[in-house]
Structures are given as structure tokens and as C-alpha cells.
């Protein structure tokens, strides 16, 4: 052990190892942050969440960083809610049951580009008689445009930007553009900046009835990583994907390497048929293509990440690595000190674990480290093929969604780039560390 620690100190001398360690450190910090800030159950709920959860996000927009590019002035999402700001509402009781109200929602719009979407959500509380409302739009120059009027139920969604009638009256411009355009005929349309107002006036027909409204001005950017086709904030998946990727990679690597090593040692030491069985199993497994097996398991049995983990570990154990360990142990087995140990009475198990395996640790450590990213990539590959865990937000899942929704074709590059960059960083970090470790610990590569 002391020998190992001493050697690990040498790592400082390898710049690539230092960089690798920094990257891994960042990833770990990210993972811890993810787990602390959003507990697991919450993350899963969010990721599965339907419209109800994500309704306040725009759909398919890039990250807010985009606004740092010159000439880009995309709006961010603005949410106005009468419940949050009761002063916007004025009520006047007209008669015993009837109440007239006006909700005015002003906002300042100063972006250079148009919002992505425009929606209003009304909720009303009543017993029998539905309230009646009239909605109008007031532009900075004072122009008032009537949007809709009618009865509302307990929850009504008014998708302003999808109102075809409105669109026709705006000279064919889509409402989110037309309602903000300076001049309806201009091509391309220009944003008219200034004070806007959404005014809702209406009547309540019951004494205890109430009404509230919410206006969402969907931005053209959102958050750190943008949103996907289900309005989900991609950064949640990226954030939570980190601990999942790391722990998956780590567990699979641990399981594979340690079990492989122990199995090889036991096989070599006890020899005869134990060794023979292990070899035969390995040879069969080497012929099989692991991806094919995983696809079969995923399609026919279960896509649960634990099942995949188990299959991957088993396939990894009976693969080329066990043969490498086997030849290493066969060499070590001949060492005089092993014979000496037998002469002073060491039992088989002790020899395997205390005399053979410690010699293999310098080989195991770098192999373990470089295996982690390979397994992370494997998980992403499976997800991309549609075999990812259906519940968990992983990087591979993000990529799968992107691909299924034609991200590159539609120009949503951010959707593909961010998980890819994270995958590459993971691979880079562990590989650099792993190669440096290999140079230090593998005696044959010393001095290179």
C-alpha cells in the first residue's frame, strides 16, 4: 500500500494527469451539486413530467449564452401572473352576484427579436356560472387589438400564438410576431420596443367566484443549456446525467476489473478444471458482440439500467482482460516468494489474495481508470439506440431525444453539443489520468 501511495505521488509530474484529475474533480463536484440540489425522486419526476411541469418553458430554444454573440438579442421568457401581483386587478361589484373586474398586465419589451410563443392561462373558481372575459392587447403606440372574448372554465389555456383568426387579422404574421411588430408590412418585421399591456376585463357571476390570469411571453433562449421538444430544461438532464454516468461507469468498472482479477487469480492458482471453465467461458464470450447481446437483452427483457449494468459486467469479466490477468498471474505464480510462502504454510486463499493479487494491482489501476469512460460511452450508445433506461435523465437520453426529433436537421445544435461535450470531457479526463497512471505503474513503460 505504501508503495502504491508513493508511486501515485509521481502523478504530479505528468501534466496530462493533472489536467485529467482537474476534469474529474469538476465532474464530481457537479455530481454532488446535482444530487444535493435536486433529489433523485424529484429529478425523475421532473424528467418524466408532462406539460404541466414544464409549461413555463419555451420549446426547443438554445441556451441564454447565445445572447453573448454579437448582433443577437433574443428575449428571455417573461411570466406575468395576476396571482402574484394582485394590484393588477381591479374589482367592482356591480350587483349582488355580478362583479366586474379588470386585470391589466403591463410589461416592457426591449429585445431586438420576437418571442417564441405567447400564451395566456386563465383559472377561475366558480360553482355554476362561468365567468366571461374580454382580452385585448395594447401596443406601446396605444393601438389596441382585440384578442378574444368568451366564457372561461376552471382552467383555460389561450394559446395566443396559435390563434389563426388573430394571425389572419395580423396580415398573416404569426401572433407572437405580429403583436410586437412595428409595421405589419415590413419585411423582415421589426420589433417595436416599449410598454405593452395585456388587458383582461370580465364579469364574475357569483359572489365567491374568482379569476386569475397568467401571461407567458416565451423567450428565445432559456437557461444554461436550452430546452428540448418537451420544454424540459436540458441542463437538468445534463446535471443529473453526471452522477449517473460517473456512478454507472464506476460501478461497472469496479465490478468488472475486480471480479475479473480475482477470478483470474483463483483460476490460475487452483488450476485444473476451474481454470479450464473460465477459459472456455471467456472464449465463448469473446466471440459474442457485446452490443448485440445488450440490444437483445434490452429489447426482449428489460431496459432497466441495473439489468444493463449486470450484463455489461458479466460480459466484461469474461473478455480479453481475464486472459491478460491470467498470463500475469501465471508468471507471478512461479515467483520464488510464492514458493516460500507455501513453505511456511500459507494456505491457498491467502496466497491468492495476499501474494498474487497485490502484484496485479499496478496493472489493475490504470485499466480500471480507462475503463470508466468506455462504459459511460457504452451507456450513451445504448440510449442512442433506444435502449436507455426509460426513467432516468442521462446524457445518452438527451442525445436520443435530439436524434429522434431531428435536432441537427432543425438547427438545434445546442441539443446535441452539450451532452456530447460532457461525454468527451469525461472520456478525456479519465483517459488522461489513466494513461499517466499506466506510465507510472506499469514497470515496462517506465521512463517513456
Amino acid at each position, binding site marked *: 500500500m505504501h*508503495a502504491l501511495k508513493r508511486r501515485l505521488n509521481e502523478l504530479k509530474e505528468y501534466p496530462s494527469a493533472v489536467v485529467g484529475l482537474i476534469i474529474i474533480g469538476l465532474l464530481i463536484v457537479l455530481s454532488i451539486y446535482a444530487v444535493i440540489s435536486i433529489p433523485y425522486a424529484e429529478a425523475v419526476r421532473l424528467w418524466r413530467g408532462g406539460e404541466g411541469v414544464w409549461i413555463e418553458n419555451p420549446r426547443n430554444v438554445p441556451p441564454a449564452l447565445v445572447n453573448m454573440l454579437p448582433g443577437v438579442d433574443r428575449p428571455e421568457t417573461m411570466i406575468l401572473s395576476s396571482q402574484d401581483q394582485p394590484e393588477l386587478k381591479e374589482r367592482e361589484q356591480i350587483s349582488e352576484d355580478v362583479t366586474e373586474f379588470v386585470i391589466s398586465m403591463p410589461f416592457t419589451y426591449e429585445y431586438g427579436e420576437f418571442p417564441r410563443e405567447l400564451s395566456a392561462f386563465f383559472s377561475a373558481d366558480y360553482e355554476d356560472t362561468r365567468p366571461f372575459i374580454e382580452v385585448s392587447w395594447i401596443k406601446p403606440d396605444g393601438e389596441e387589438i382585440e384578442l378574444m372574448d368568451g366564457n372561461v372554465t376552471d382552467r383555460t389555456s389561450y394559446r395566443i400564438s396559435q390563434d389563426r383568426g388573430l394571425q389572419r387579422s395580423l396580415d398573416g404574421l404569426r401572433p407572437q410576431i405580429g403583436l410586437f411588430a412595428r409595421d405589419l408590412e415590413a419585411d423582415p418585421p421589426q420589433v417595436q420596443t416599449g410598454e405593452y399591456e395585456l388587458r383582461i376585463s370580465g364579469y364574475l357571476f357569483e359572489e365567491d367566484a374568482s379569476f386569475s390570469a397568467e401571461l407567458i411571453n416565451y423567450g428565445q433562449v432559456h437557461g444554461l443549456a436550452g430546452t428540448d421538444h418537451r420544454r424540459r430544461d436540458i441542463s437538468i438532464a445534463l446535471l443529473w446525467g453526471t452522477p449517473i454516468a460517473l456512478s454507472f461507469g464506476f460501478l461497472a468498472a469496479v465490478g468488472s476489473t475486480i471480479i475479473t482479477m480475482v477470478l483470474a487469480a483463483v483460476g490460475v492458482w487452483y488450476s485444473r478444471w476451474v481454470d479450464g471453465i473460465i477459459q472456455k467461458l471467456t472464449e465463448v464470450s469473446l466471440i459474442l458482440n457485446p452490443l448485440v447481446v445488450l440490444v437483445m437483452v434490452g429489447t426482449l427483457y428489460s431496459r432497466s439500467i441495473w439489468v444493463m449494468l449486470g450484463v455489461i459486467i458479466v460480459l466484461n469479466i469474461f473478455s480479453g482482460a481475464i486472459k491478460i490477468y491470467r498470463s500475469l498471474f501465471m508468471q507471478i505464480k512461479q*515467483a520464488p516468494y510464492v514458493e516460500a*510462502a507455501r513453505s511456511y504454510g500459507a494456505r491457498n486463499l491467502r496466497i491468492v489474495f495476499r501474494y498474487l493479487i497485490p*502484484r496485479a494491482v499496478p496493472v489493475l489501476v490504470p485499466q480500471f481508470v480507462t475503463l470508466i469512460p468506455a462504459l459511460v460511452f457504452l451507456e450513451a450508445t445504448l440510449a442512442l439506440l433506444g435502449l436507455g433506461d426509460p426513467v432516468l435523465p442521462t446524457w445518452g437520453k438527451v442525445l436520443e431525444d435530439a436524434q429522434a426529433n431531428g435536432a441537427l436537421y432543425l438547427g438545434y445544435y445546442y441539443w446535441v453539443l452539450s451532452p456530447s461535450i460532457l461525454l468527451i470531457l469525461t472520456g478525456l479526463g479519465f483517459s488522461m489520468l489513466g494513461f499517466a497512471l499506466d506510465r507510472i505503474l506499469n514497470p515496462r513503460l517506465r521512463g517513456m
Partner: protein
Amino acid sequence: MTENNGLGPSLLRVQDLETFFTLRKWGFLRVGEVRAVDGVNFDLREGEAVSIVGESGCGKSTLAKTILGLQQPTGGSVHFGDQVLDTSDRRQMDWYRAQVGYIQQDPYGALPPFMTVRRILEEPMIINGVKSSSERWQRMEKALTELKMTPVEEFLHKFPHQLSGGQQQRVVIARAKILDPQLIVSDEPVSMLDPSVRVEILELLRLLQRDYHVAVVYITHDLSTVRYFSERIFVMYGGQLIEKGLVEEILRNAKHPYTMALLEAISDPDPENVNTFKKVPGGEPPSLANPPAGCRFHPRCPYRIDGTCDQKPPPEFTMTEQHRVSCWLYGDAS
């Protein structure tokens, strides 16, 4: 006929010992056997030091391993005290292993490179049930002090590669001795060390042997060191002991042609040597898989008696009580 040289009760008695290795083709087809130990008899007293001299390939290492219980004999028996050794008897072997120490040729290879000296010395004790750590410490301290590795604390933390060859071998000796065995088998303990260090190690071993009344089997190919180490000497050739006797007697009065050739082949550092050619037989040591018929040495023997030596293996003839030879020159083929 036992060889009683008046030293005390017999500790190790080897009778008609045979250790053969089967050569197999394709894993199961028997195509022959390597007769590494082919009919060895000797008697070792408590506290006695004996040298077994032979060249590489004569079977001496296999003999060592068979005595140690690391190798199961295929014929004959090994008696230790009043027990017959049986390698399949777990309990007996566990007990036996604590009675015998093993010193190997390669000092660096004999020590696990990832263990400190302390761990190396503790292993035999832990395995053999020395539970109290203070007792272990005492034993370690004593062992290292006897082997002149002081201050003890300094050495306990070191790893094998931080020690010189001589120091490494001393750790090996300490480890062999730490359970107070009755017998130590040392296989070429100094041949990988520098000449000026060899003497030191042999002397230390000799001292330990005397002080603790430990029987030592010293296996070597270097006949010139034998005088400084043991009272008796056995000469091994082709898996058999072809001459046995007291060291001084053999060195002055060797009888077997092979022993005589060995003595002739060894040089003393004498500048006059330049002018003399050694009269040694040519040829190669015999293959243990396909040994010559009759006396194993006959193809190379300058005194070969055709008709006898090439046909019948010679029995052991007694020259004196202590001096035995297996050679047709000294007896009748009757």
C-alpha cells in the same frame, strides 16, 4: 543400515526417495517421466549440517522441495522425527511447515516486493498462529539482531528493493528462522551474491546453526564453500546420491570418479593454474528423462568398466562407516 555418526537422534530420514514427473503429450498421453530424485537415502541428525553438492539439473532442487513437503514424492518416504510425511495430510503438513525453514537462491525473488520487511517476517508467524503482536515483535527483533541488521526499526520499514543483495538474503534467513524450526533447507543461498558477501552470509548461517542446534541442509554447486559450512557432504548426480562422507575425508580422498572430477574442476586462486590443463571428462550432465542405463555417469567416466557400468546400476558400497560410494570400482557385481 543407518548412518550414525554419534551426533544424536535422527531428525530427517529419507528412504528410497523417488520424485518423478510425468511427461504428457496433449495433456493426457503419457510419454515418459523425468526422474528428478531417483532412489535417495540419507539420514540427518538433529543439529547437523550437511551439504548436498551437485550441478544444475542433477535434481537437487527437486530433492529440496520434496524434503520441504512442497513436492509429493512418487516413491519412498521422508521421515521427520518419528513421523512419516504425507503431503495429503493437512494437519501434519501445517505442523511440519513450522518445523522447516526454506532459504532460496534468489534473495530478491524470495521476498514479496510489495511487503515491508516487517510484513515479510510477520507472515510466517501470523499463519502459524503466533497471535500476540508483542511476541511477534520480540521474535522479529531477535531475528534481525542476530543477523546483524540493526538498528532494527530502520530495517522493518524498508521494502526489498531498498536493501542490498546481502541484506535481502539476511531477511530471507531471518524469515526461515523466525519460527525456531528444527531444520533449514537452503538451496544455493549465496550463489547470487557477490564473493565478498558470501562469506558473511555463510558464517551467519553457520553461527545460527550452531547456536540454535538447527539442522541445515546446504545445497550448492560450489564445492569450495562446503568446507566452511558442514561436517558431511553428499554428492548428487543424475538424481542420485553417488557419494557420501565427512567433508575432510571426501576432499582428501574422494572415491567416485565424478567427485574426483569435480574436485579437479574447481580452481583455487593460484596463478600457477595458467600453465596446467585440468583433466576433466567432457560430455554433458545426463538427462533426467532419459538417463543412461546402469551407472548414470558411465558415458563420461574415464574408469568405466564395459559390461558392468553400462548395464547395472551400482549399489552403495561402504568404504568406512561414514564414507559410502555408489561405484562399481569398489565392489563386485555379485
